[in-house]
């Protein structure tokens, strides 16, 4: 059976393969072909005969192509390996530069933003997950429960690691990692002296567990002896330059260590920055690291299990070890200790609890930013869909012709999707350049270390390409089906109505875009507002204009702190000074106390600050009952206690006054005063019970209340005094408020990123609006001309065009507000002190969105409104 349509399709295909013929040419040739056939049929021929005759009369594709090529200048063709639909896509894009530009810009910015966020997320999730055998490595955490509450900490019993390795065949290696001090420690080699932050004390197994490469030295023996140290290549160069460091001695915190090996530099994505690794043997004999002593536990323990060992089963086996080795002491304290395993690869983004792992704040931020990236991409896709459907009328003719000429619907769908995929990939190329140029800025904003090579790494490159493909298809698919649904008979007989369906969709998309943008704007304002709120919140102490200097170690000013203070106070701008073991925002230990005569179980581990008599004055912390320390009462030193209100409450004393005069422990240390509660740490954390003791042997800081009249001179004075009194030491100072605000770094960083990305979102939404406004203005050119000719004013016409968009943006607010409220409230729950839901911000966000939308639209409307009416009437 002769299928004439099939034969015509085949014939058409031969023409389509010829690059010199475009769709229009082929449609026309086909029309001719069919006329020819129709005449044959009319004169009595059968389908097949008619087809053969028409075929005989028509020229072969090559000849046709050659002839067309000769007569009609063709646009330059794309490279020959591009399939036909791509060539068409390029041709179309070149024809409509304005719209293509808007689409490409929006997609470029969208893909670049998503790419940056992706880099960030990949980096964060890569932290400490690169170690060999990562699936077998666990940190053994300590679950602690006492009358005061429960928590899970990373620091564990000193002897846990060796015990596990010796007694459990499941354990391949067990590392002891001891962090040491809160402050950077001085490292000295000859004339080179710096403070180093990344000093860890570890046993030999740590090299294996953390997969640390040893460039020189013997892996097995390097950490075997007391007072040996391994330096990273970077640090070795810093101190030794070209010299060979092996076998030399280096002074770390006043102790000499022999260098027994050089380590490969730590990668950026690790939290175990092994720049200086001291052998654990060197500290083993220190008193506070002895044995199975609860309360002294502070050595992190990592185990690598043998292949095939079931971690859950192993956890059950070791869970009660503290009971076995420290049961007596724990009972006395009324405490329970259990061991919990935490996989190394889930150490950064999860927090350990007794039962399971809990997502950390950091993970929440990763989720939020991933969602933001998704939203931004959605915005860019919506732009594409919006502009494509808005301009459907322009393309309806093309669709009609091609369909009438026999193009199948799926061919059209492929073509349209092809166009959007091409657009997406052009945008990808531009986005890669954008990412490269923004990388340094982004690094300093996020604090992550990345280089260009990160862009080439597999998961990133593959996801970005995959994402681009998805974007191309997602944004092309609706327009493709929408456009290809046009019926040729309708569109070719007259201008197709732009279709109610299309209008409604566009309105929905613009509203959605603005709803997303407004949500992000509210998010931005909320984060900024909360950070600001936290910074302005009364902390219970004065942090501004407080200068502090750090001492290398405890005891350096045990005997002479009063004279050091006196020297410092000679400067008129130094108003008061105190020596102390810490200042707010820095680390502070805990000490265990119980009331005299009570069972030890009634005790509490309190945050324990050591400070002299001037601390409360320097930081303006009021004493609410009793008195503070007095230097003229010798017994105050080391023999008296001051609690904060929480501390008094922790022991069940009803009022501050009731606490004064009570004594603690068997030593009967008297409580002489109660100070008002103040925030030692940022407002994310609640105020904890605290005890203050006048104990000079633990002083490490001097904090000063200063007058900022001439800061450089004040600092110069302090430095002069320090260098004179402590020759050979490294002078180091900081401002208490700056140091304190560092605790809000995550929030500030989040705020900056949020601002950046909501700006991007708004930009994309406005691009779309700009395109739509241009289109609307163009469509209404004639109407505007007539109105002007009839005497309408320019402002009248501008408002005519703007009114519609204003309505949409206002509607978007209605959607954005509940969403922003819900998410915002959830986020604020992370803070112990949070601002009241700021409704003003919602209105502000609405105003910002409206203003920007107005500005975008009015640019187009003003252009349309100021055009000469005669020009616009002549149009068409």
């Amino acid at each position, binding site marked *: 059976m002769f299928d004439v349509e099939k034969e015509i399709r085949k014939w058409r295909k031969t023409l389509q393969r010829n690059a010199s013929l475009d769709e229009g040419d082929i449609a026309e040739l086909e029309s001719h072909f069919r006329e020819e056939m129709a005449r044959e049929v009319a004169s009595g021929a059968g389908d097949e005969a008619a087809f053969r005759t028409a075929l005989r*009369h028509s020229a072969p594709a090559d000849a046709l192509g050659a002839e067309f090529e000769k007569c009609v200048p063709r646009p330059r063709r794309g490279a020959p390996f591009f399939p036909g639909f791509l060539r068409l896509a390029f041709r179309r894009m070149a024809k409509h530069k304005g719209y293509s530009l808007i689409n490409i810009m929006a997609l470029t910015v969208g893909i670049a933003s998503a790419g940056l966020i992706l880099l960030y997320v990949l980096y964060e999730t890569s932290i400490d997950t690169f170690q060999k055998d990562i699936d077998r490595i666990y940190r053994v955490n300590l679950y602690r429960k006492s009358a005061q509450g429960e928590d899970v900490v990373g620091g564990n019993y000193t002897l846990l690691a060796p015990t596990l390795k010796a007694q459990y065949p499941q354990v391949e290696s067990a590392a002891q990692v001891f962090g040491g001090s809160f402050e950077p420690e001085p490292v000295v080699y000859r004339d080179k002296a710096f403070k180093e932050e990344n000093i860890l004390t570890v046993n030999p197994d740590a090299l294996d567990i953390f997969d640390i490469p040893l460039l020189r030295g013997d892996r097995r023996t390097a950490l075997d002896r007391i007072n040996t140290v391994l330096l990273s290549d970077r640090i070795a160069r810093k101190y030794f330059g070209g010299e060979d460091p092996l076998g030399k001695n280096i002074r770390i915190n006043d102790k000499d260590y022999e260098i027994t090996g050089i380590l490969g530099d730590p990668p950026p994505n690790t939290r175990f920055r092994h720049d200086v690794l001291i052998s654990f043997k060197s500290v083993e004999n220190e008193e506070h690291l002895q044995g199975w002593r609860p309360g002294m536990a502070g050595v992190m323990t990592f185990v690598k299990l043998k292949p095939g060992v079931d971690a859950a089963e192993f956890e059950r086996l070791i869970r009660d070890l503290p009971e076995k080795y420290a049961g007596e002491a724990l009972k006395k304290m009324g405490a329970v200790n259990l061991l919990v395993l935490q996989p190394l690869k889930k150490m950064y983004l999860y927090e350990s609890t007794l039962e399971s792992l809990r997502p950390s704040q950091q993970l929440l931020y990763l989720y939020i930013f991933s969602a933001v990236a998704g939203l931004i991409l959605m915005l860019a896709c919506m732009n594409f869909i919006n502009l494509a459907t808005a301009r459907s009328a322009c393309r309806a003719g093309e669709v009609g012709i091609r369909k009438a000429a026999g193009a199948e619907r799926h061919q059209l769908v492929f073509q349209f999707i092809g166009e959007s995929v091409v657009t997406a990939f052009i945008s990808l190329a531009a986005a890669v350049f954008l990412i490269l140029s923004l990388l340094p800025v982004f690094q300093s904003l996020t604090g992550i270390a990345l280089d260009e090579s990160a862009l080439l790494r597999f998961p990133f490159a593959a996801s970005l390409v995959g994402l681009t493909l998805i974007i191309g298809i997602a944004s092309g698919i609706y327009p493709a089906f929408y456009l290809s649904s046009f019926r040729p008979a309708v569109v070719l007989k007259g201008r197709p109505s732009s279709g109610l369906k299309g209008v409604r969709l566009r309105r929905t998309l613009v509203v959605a875009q603005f709803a997303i943008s407004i949500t992000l704007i509210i998010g931005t304002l909320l984060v900024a507002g909360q950070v600001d709120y936290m910074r302005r919140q009364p902390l219970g102490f004065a942090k501004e204009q407080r200068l502090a200097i750090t001492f290398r170690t405890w005891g350096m000013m045990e005997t002479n702190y009063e004279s050091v203070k006196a020297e410092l106070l000679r400067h008129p701008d130094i108003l008061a000074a105190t020596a102390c073991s810490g200042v707010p925002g820095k680390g502070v230990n805990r000490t265990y106390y119980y009331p005299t005569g009570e069972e030890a179980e009634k005790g509490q581990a309190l945050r324990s600050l050591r400070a002299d008599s001037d601390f409360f004055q320097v930081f303006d912390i009021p004493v609410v009952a009793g008195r503070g320390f007095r230097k003229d009462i010798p017994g105050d030193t080391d023999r008296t206690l001051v609690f904060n209100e929480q501390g008094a409450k922790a022991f069940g004393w009803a009022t501050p006054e009731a606490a004064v005069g009570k004594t603690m422990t068997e030593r009967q240390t008297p409580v002489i005063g109660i100070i008002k509660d103040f925030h030692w740490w940022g407002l994310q954390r609640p105020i904890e019970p605290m005890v203050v003791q006048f104990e000079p042997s633990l002083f490490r800081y001097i904090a000063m209340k200063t007058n900022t009249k001439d800061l450089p001179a004040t600092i110069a004075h302090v430095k002069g005094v320090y260098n004179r009194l402590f020759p050979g030491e490294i002078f180091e100072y900081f401002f208490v408020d700056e140091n304190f605000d560092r605790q809000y770094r995550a929030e500030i960083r989040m705020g900056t990123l949020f601002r950046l990305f909501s700006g991007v979102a708004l930009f994309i939404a406005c691009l779309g609006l700009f395109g739509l406004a241009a289109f609307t203005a163009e469509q209404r050119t004639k109407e505007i001309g007539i109105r002007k000719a009839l005497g309408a004013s320019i402002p009248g016409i501008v408002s005519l065009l703007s009114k519609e968009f204003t309505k949409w943006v206002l509607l978007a607010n209605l959607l954005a507000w509940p969403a922003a409220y819900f998410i915002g409230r959830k986020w604020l729950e992370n803070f112990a002190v949070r601002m009241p839901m700021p409704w003003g911000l919602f209105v502000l966000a609405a105003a910002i969105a409206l203003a920007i939308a107005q500005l975008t639209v009015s640019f187009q409307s003003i252009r349309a409104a100021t055009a000469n009416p005669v020009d616009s009437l002549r149009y068409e």
Partner: protein
Amino acid sequence: MISKVLVAASTKPIILSILVRGEDYGYQIIQRVKEISGGALEWSDNMLYPVLHRLENDGFIDSRWMISDGGRLRKYYKLTGLGRKELEAERIQWMDVHNALSRLWEPVPAGE
């Protein structure tokens, strides 16, 4: 049989002359040429359409797609203002040639 060169040269004035009478589509134009020339001019598709497209590119003619009552898709061409002027210029040239040849081919008076 008219020579190839002459056919090619005359395509443009003939198309313009047909379209000055009204809108028309490709197949119909070929039929008309055949009719008018009494079968002496038989154009093929690969002669006509490229020229139509060039004329359109040059702005002498304009086109639009339409669907006939029979549901057939056709591309119609019509003359533009520029096309009329071009036709006039062509007409003068062709008339000049025609006049010259006519005079040359007038029967020679006997006896001279």
